């Protein structure tokens, strides 16, 4: 199943297949890469911050967990594993 990270069901593990760098500004893209969000990275969607909105999203990458906004997650295409 292919989707974007913001739509990945919680608890689901997926692999990043593409990131739309044009949807992010340069600094945001760089920070994503520094946090290890790259093509081929495996991650798991963990938590959402609110009941009524989708922001933010917590994901686990290896042993680290990070929080990102849905807007950024929407730029990340993933394939469920």
């Amino acid at each position: 199943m292919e989707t974007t990270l913001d739509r990945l069901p919680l608890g689901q593990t997926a692999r990043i297949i593409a990131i739309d760098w044009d949807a992010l500004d340069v600094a945001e893209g760089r920070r994503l890469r520094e946090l290890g969000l790259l093509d081929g990275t495996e991650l798991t969607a963990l938590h959402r911050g609110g009941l009524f909105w989708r922001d933010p999203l917590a994901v686990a990458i290896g042993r680290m967990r990070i929080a990102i906004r849905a807007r950024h997650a929407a730029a990340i295409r993933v394939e469920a594993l």
Partner: protein
Amino acid sequence: MTTASPLVALVGNPNAGKSSLFNALTGARQKIANYPGVTVERHSGRASFADGRPLELIDLPGSYSLTPASLDEAVTRDVVLGRQAGERRPDALIVVVDAGNLDQHLCFALELIGQGLPVVIALNMVDMAARDGLELDAAALAARLGVPVVPTVAVRKRGLDALLDALDGALKQGASAAPAANDDQRALHHQARALARAAIVREAPARRWTHAIDRVLLHPVAGFAVLLALLFIMFQAVFAWATPFADALEGGIGALQGLVIAAMPDGFLRGLIVEGLLGGVGSVVVFLPQILILFLFILLLEASGYMTRAAFLMDGLMAKVGLSGRGFIPLLSSFACAIPGIMATRAMPDAQDRLTTILVAPLMTCSARLPVYAVIIAAFIPATSVGGSPVGLQGLVLFGLYLFGIIGALLVALVLRRTVTKGNTAGMMMELPRYQMPRAGDVLLGLWQRAWAFLRRAGTIILATTVILWLLLTYPKVPEGSNISQVDYSVAGRIASGLEVVVKPIGFNHDIALALIPAMAAREVAVAALATANAVDAGDDEDAMAAALGDTLAGKWSLATALAFLAWFVFAPQCISTIAVTRRETGGWKWPLFMVGYLFVLAYVAAGITYWTAVALGLG
């Protein structure tokens, strides 16, 4: 500064345990200053090698790479590259990595090793990694990296001697034949993952504890309930726990006043000491226990890793008003004091987001307002419980005032982001570190630094303003036989009479008008000013002087006036130091002036509405 002792910088990712390692290496021998031109704090301290030779350590802001996304990170890059004004290039680096997060933290480590300085890796928090089921081979990692790798547990002071020995060796040897610097994140990540895989001997599934706790604490309903409960307990504790300490302090100050009155002849000096110094400064120092309890909570929440969870929960809400969860930590710090709060915005990458956060930071009720709230609440709100529950009414009112400030801040941010600080919705990307037990030593050191800063403030700016105010209140002396009170006759009283015309419509009396002027220097001086005026009015009548300030006020003010006064202080234009730090952080007078202006208007309107409503309800 001696150039003989080597300068060594601690560098690493955020959450690598860098500051704990810095504390463990330097103990209390620390200095906090600012880098010239920027307001990033420079933490330095001294340590010594096994044979006693000294070295100077600096703790650089946590960073993910040498390409900065914020002012803090720019300092880290500039110091490492030797470009930071006022700082010589370090002779060596201690790169701190979290043993439980190697594939992430080794990226920055690799970039740092490539800079041509002698490097020692502190493989920190190995105990936590072990508890997580990770077994690591430090020697294998060292062999592949070509630099010494020393396992450490900063919070238990383990591995420190070995780390210093390795550092000594690295300094003598000079830079190793380092791989070429590479800032291509993709390549670095590949390399880091390969290294981590080689170093990991055994691995169990990751972080079950943190995962289990997060299931509750990050839950959109349960998590929010916990956050609100924590904040509520915090404000209840500020009132309930501090009382015995505050009473003891107050008793001590009263006893001192009695001693001075008994020992000295009546005159200028005795008046200055008893009314100005002890009466004024003393009335502020009494709040030290409450301020320390507030800071204790903030430090514990930060050290345990909970603070970023709070930011996570708040992000969705803050996004609605155009702020980001990144701003939550600066705003929460502003509950202690707006100055560290505004300085903490330096870690925020988005300029408009940062500016908005700075502008609303003064609406978070800082600890300097606590004395004002505490006196008024104690005087006007009965110390009963709400409906027979263990919840105290006074604590509830205090909680309400804080909430009032927060709602005000959210509304102001909403308006600002649509008008003067328009821009893209800010992003938020941050790491959620693993939970850990706060270390008593680190918390106590933090508390001590806060207590010291508060007492120094009380000893300087608060002392100066209360003494000046006392002089203005005492002279000219009211003529013999006149029935005008000393306060009304004095210079300060006459100025206040002028101001009273402006603030009368919102229910403020002469006392308040008098207190508002020095409150601009430091808000807690409002209490000192009321106390000093009270003491001057009481003259040598010891009974009147001994009467607590609260009781006097309760006799003189109406409830509506007291409530209006509280409302004023929710929005009150901040102290001179906040204006100064805003000017420094925004690089000009435009934004601080804007901030003062809008706060004045809000304070006036809020106090007015409160007063008129209260009067209409028959509380006047």
